[in-house]
């Protein structure tokens, strides 16, 4: 079991502010060891990586590559060559979308889902609009908030180029059947891109178990610094695929006429990478492993179920996504009838410093499907306690009394 009080002590923001932070699906707070790592980097290292011949550059490069190794190990990649460092999860998806478009001989459909974050919709859409090669299609979401596997099977065919979907929906909390989706795609020779932004923070992920071709996630949603994302790609694919972006550090040889690229991952990392952030992300992963990922999952699951249970008992509330007791990934989105989600967020913040999210959560197509204009969302992490959930629930009830009963319709 996680000892939440111990964990909380590692997070300076929670000491410096009176705060119940329940917006973890957007970004997480930062623990001491990560802050420490950044500080050490800038105080003791700080040269550019790969090209320097002097000692400082060598040490910096070694720390940087050691961090890349840790990331590879964390997700069970075969090699650090499969780990491309990006600035956020979104960049990784864009890189794959552009690269696939140039590389794929096959032309046909790219499937995304109605529950995708804009970051896993718009890159594909921009590409599909600009090129005659790809057409975008949306796999539907059932009334219960699950991926509609029957609809997926109908839309999937040997003409499908790629399937992009989230491990966990950032609005519904739905935990998708990664293996099933992946196997079906592979039977149709379609590549699989998994948006792991909401999965990686609190669930173990082993590539050898799931077999996806690409995986993207963000460091800042799992205790790491801002400005860093990870793109995993199977090595043989990364070797064959052309990098969409050009720059320094990615070429073996450039004459005015020819370019010879380096091997992955450098091939996909033009320019100076986010060095300090990558090294500090290793500190975040070490911290998560120290807490134990399975413990983190249990803890987050408990908080989430507690929130679902208690919320369901409040009258006039709509909860989206999986039912009580069903698997759910660390978050709950809901609406209180007669109270706009924005008003709820403002009120909880004013009343008791409870930070929750309200709006569309960058998932507008899903809100269209749900036929709602916005929703409120709470999301949990290692430093949240049962008491945080209870104060949140008390807050919701209070807001209902103050603002409910009349709405702007």
């Amino acid at each position, binding site marked *: 079991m996680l000892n939440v009080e111990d964990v909380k002590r590692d997070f300076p923001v929670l000491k410096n502010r009176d705060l119940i932070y329940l917006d973890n699906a957007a970004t997480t707070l930062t623990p001491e060891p990560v802050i420490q790592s950044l500080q050490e980097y800038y105080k003791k290292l700080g040269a550019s990586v790969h090209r320097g011949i002097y000692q400082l550059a060598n040490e910096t490069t070694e720390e940087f590559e050691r961090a890349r190794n840790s990331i590879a190990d964390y997700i069970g990649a075969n090699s650090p060559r499969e780990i491309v460092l990006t600035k956020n999860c979104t960049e990784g998806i864009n890189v794959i979308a552009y690269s696939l478009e140039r590389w794929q001989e096959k032309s046909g459909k790219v499937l995304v889902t109605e529950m995708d974050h804009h970051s896993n919709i718009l890159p594909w859409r921009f590409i599909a609009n600009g090129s005659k090669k790809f057409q975008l299609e949306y796999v539907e979401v059932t009334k219960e908030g699950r991926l509609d596997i029957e609809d997926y099977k109908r839309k999937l065919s040997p003409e499908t180029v790629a399937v992009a979907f989230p491990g966990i929906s950032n609005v519904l909390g739905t935990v998708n059947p990664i293996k099933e989706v992946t196997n079906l795609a592979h039977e149709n020779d379609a590549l699989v891109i998994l948006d792991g932004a909401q999965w990686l923070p609190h669930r173990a992920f082993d590539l050898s178990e799931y077999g996806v071709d690409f995986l993207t996630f963000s460091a800042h949603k799992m205790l790491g610094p801002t400005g860093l994302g990870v793109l995993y790609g199977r090595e043989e694919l990364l070797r064959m695929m052309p990098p969409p972006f050009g720059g320094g550090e990615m070429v073996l040889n450039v004459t005015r006429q020819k370019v010879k690229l380096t091997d992955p991952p450098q091939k996909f990392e033009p320019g100076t990478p986010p060095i300090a952030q990558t090294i500090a992300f290793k500190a975040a992963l070490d911290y998560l492993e120290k807490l134990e990922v399975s413990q983190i999952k249990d803890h987050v699951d408990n908080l989430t179920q507690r929130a679902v249970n208690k919320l369901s008992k409040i009258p006039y509330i709509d909860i989206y996504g999986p039912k009580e007791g069903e698997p759910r990934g660390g978050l709950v989105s809901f609406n209180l009838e007669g109270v*706009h989600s924005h008003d709820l967020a*403002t009120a909880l*913040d004013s009343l008791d410093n409870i930070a929750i999210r309200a*709006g569309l959560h960058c998932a507008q197509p899903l809100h269209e499907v749900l036929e709602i204009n916005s929703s409120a969302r709470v999301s949990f992490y290692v430093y949240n306690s049962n008491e945080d959930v209870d104060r949140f629930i008390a807050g919701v009830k209070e807001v209902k009394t103050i603002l409910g009963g009349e709405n*702007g319709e």
Partner: protein
Amino acid sequence: MENKPKIYNQDVLHHYQNPHNRGKLDDPDFSATKENPNCGDRISLQLKLSEDEISEVKFDGHGCVLSIGAASILTQMAMGLRVSEASDLTVDDLLNNMGNPGKMRKDCVSLALEVLKEALSQSGG
């Protein structure tokens, strides 16, 4: 850290619960509708001019306390103004009349104002 506001100024809450000038004009001179895509709030506004002055104004729509409250307050502020005067209204004017709710929700407040400006711009004013 600044001091937190009360959830909302009582006045704003009152306007939200009992909005003024809500509804539709039969034969408006100008009208406009806008949506705040971040939350789906939607306000439409209609107005009539008599000479250069706003003689009638009504709004409709759905939204949060601040967007509905702002629309209600703004219609009161706009009534009787000349087109040029109404066009000069700023978000800060509106915020002042609402007891300055937190900046985080400026977009909610400005929606009504944007709709008014759009309607006025059609008048060439």
